[in-house]
């Protein structure tokens, strides 16, 4: 099969796009904008989903919360011994945490103070990966904290700084900063202040036999659902969440936002395709004469159709590529104007950078969504152009 004629036609198609620049730009710009929307949506969503997946490594297999009168309450540590005896149990770790509503100069914010029992920590070998600077807490630490990157920025805090924290409810304490989380898991950590269990108890006024919840670790992750079910049956006055359910919550939150954009994007794409169709179907006198001359010179109808289809393909490809680049840059810049909606109403202060995930499957899908409809929609206009009657066209 001789491919040289086809290559010549494709090169001519590319040259035609340069020759008729105005027409090409009129199609590429709206297509590029539409694909930019699709791209930023896909990269941002991918970023959130990836972070949720990454952070899952650090989440407990099961979280057990106390429930009283249908509301989440403190949990008694008396249940720990019974939970520890369930088969496949590895560790049960009490945790105390709460929100810190604060009024900073720039805004009203709400951070999370979390106290962990470092004597029973099971994730300490992974923790160093999450730190940008400093070290994590060790058993016995008192008066020390590890800050999320967002908190560190708000207080302009660095490792070894002294940090005074006072919330709007009158709770106060002073800590030494020993570490700052990096941005790899910022979905969970950006507004976090991690301290020892005792410091958190002292701050929030918990008794020694109480905790906010219990972190349960099993010896085989595939047994998590089974253990969760057992705990639920043993302690009806608890709420049991698996790690999978928690990450699905995060994924769902951003999927719903992504779903809104998908609808908007599909409508925009349809509009662009209609524009492309209208433009391609309009065959003016000059184009008609040009096709008539080509046919007189021996060009086949099929060759003209192929050239026109290739023009549409190239337009689609270039428009999509530009759109993807614009979308990528827009996400890197933090989706200005839309970051509030992307992150949800509980915006984190200071500005939370949107995570970006750009992988080959996302790019492939974007190219399919941009190039394919463009090419398919141009089939009939290309045919209309290719089947122009040369006799009539040349006489015009």
């Amino acid at each position, binding site marked *: 099969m001789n491919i040289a004629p086809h290559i010549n036609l494709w090169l001519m198609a590319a040259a035609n796009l340069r020759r008729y620049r105005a027409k090409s730009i009129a199609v590429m710009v709206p297509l590029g904008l539409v694909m930019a929307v699709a791209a930023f949506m*896909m990269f941002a*969503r991918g970023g959130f989903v990836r972070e949720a997946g990454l952070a899952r490594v650090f989440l407990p297999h099961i979280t057990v919360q106390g429930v009283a009168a249908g509301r989440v309450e403190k949990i008694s540590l008396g249940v720990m011994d019974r939970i520890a005896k369930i088969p496949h149990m590895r560790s049960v770790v009490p945790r105390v945490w709460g929100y810190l509503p604060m009024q900073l100069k720039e805004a009203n914010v709400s951070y999370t103070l979390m106290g962990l029992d470092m004597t029973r920590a099971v994730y300490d070998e992974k923790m160093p990966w999450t730190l940008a600077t400093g070290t994590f807490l060790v058993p016995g630490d008192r008066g020390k904290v590890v800050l999320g990157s967002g908190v560190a920025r708000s207080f302009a805090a660095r490792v070894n700084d002294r940090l005074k924290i006072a919330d709007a409810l009158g709770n106060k304490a002073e800590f030494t900063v020993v570490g700052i989380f990096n941005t790899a898991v910022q979905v969970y950590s950006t507004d976090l202040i991690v301290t020892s269990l005792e410091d958190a108890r002292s701050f929030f006024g918990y008794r020694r036999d109480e905790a906010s919840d219990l972190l349960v670790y099993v010896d085989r992750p595939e047994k998590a659902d089974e253990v969760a079910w057992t705990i639920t049956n043993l302690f009806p006055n608890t709420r049991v969440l698996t790690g999978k359910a928690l990450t699905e919550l995060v994924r769902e939150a951003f999927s719903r936002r992504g*779903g809104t954009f*998908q609808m908007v994007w*599909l409508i925009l794409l349809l509009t662009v395709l209609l524009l492309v169709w209208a433009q391609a179907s309009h065959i003016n006198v000059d184009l008609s004469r040009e096709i008539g001359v080509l046919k007189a010179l021996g060009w086949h*109808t*099929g060759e003209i*159709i192929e050239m026109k*289809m290739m023009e549409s393909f190239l337009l689609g490809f270039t428009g999509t590529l530009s759109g993807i680049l614009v979308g990528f840059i827009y996400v890197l810049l933090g989706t200005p104007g839309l970051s509030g909606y992307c992150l949800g109403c509980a915006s984190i202060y200071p500005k939370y950078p949107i995570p970006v995930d750009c992988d080959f*499957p*996302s790019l492939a*899908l974007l190219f*399919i*969504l941009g190039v*394919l*409809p463009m*090419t*398919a929609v141009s*089939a*009939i206009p*290309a*045919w209309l152009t*290719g*089947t122009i009657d040369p006799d009539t066209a040349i006489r015009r």
Partner: protein
Amino acid sequence: MLNNYIVTYLVCSVFSLVIGIVAAASGLSVSRRWESAGSTEEQYRLEKRVYLIITLVSVGLCLRLLMVPLWFGTLHSMLGSIPGAMCLTGVHNSNTPYSYLASSLKLLLPPLYGFWLILNALDRKVASQPFMKQKLLFLTPLGILVLGESLLDAYFFFTVPYRQVSCCTSLFDLPEANITPIVAQSWGWLVMFYALILFVWGEMVYFFYAQKRSASAARGWWFGNKAIMFMETALIIATFGVFIYVLNGNFSPLFLHRPLHHCIFCLGQQVGDALLSSGMIFLGLTLFMIYFWVASFARYRGLNPVLGDQMTKLLGWAGAMLTGGIIILSVHLFFVL
């Protein structure tokens, strides 16, 4: 459960459906009024419509070829959402039989489109375009298949139930050292596969040289012979069926090094050359079948002097694909054993 893959796939499916339906409707309309010796304005208009059909089928084939990996990629993207699914077998099992029917059509439609385009290319080599009506009418069943496939796809995606599914293998498997004796229990099918392939390959060689010799004179005892066409089609389908069986039962456990792991999806995903060789064998057998479909047309005998060279090339490609695929598969088998 509309993730990016599903949305993309559904967009492609909509375009494919529109193209299939428009091509089928146009084909039916043109075939009713076509007269190859006509010179009326009407005939010229019909010729223009044929160009539209060719354009649509060409775009349709490209779309079809894209939709095959996209479909399996989309199924793969659903793994995390279906409890118990660890590979595509699990995803298929979540909504049988629609899933398996849809997957089968994915593999069936590209060869049918390919057949049409090959027939069209041969038809256009002759001024009288002798296969015009046949190729136009063929678009109707093709359009119906595309419609059926689109409905199956949509039904599959929108009715996947959230329930535990079984997958292709158990969590535990036997040590690798035990593979050969276990697989050898079904050696009969492997022998049958190679016997069939050798037979088909021998036929390809025979018909290749017979076609070459027949080019100058309109000889060829199989030209215009529908019975031969049906027999060869049945033989090729049987060969392909046996191939799927041994791929699942013999090649999968051997190549995956797990005696109880019978899954062509896992095989395709984890063993690249298995996917390549399977594709080449499939393509080779399909091209061979297409050859007989074309040669069985009653008027082919008179057209052989014009089309003989192209048909010889078709057989050459069929043989090359089949030979290449079998060699790759067999070399891998040799090293595993």
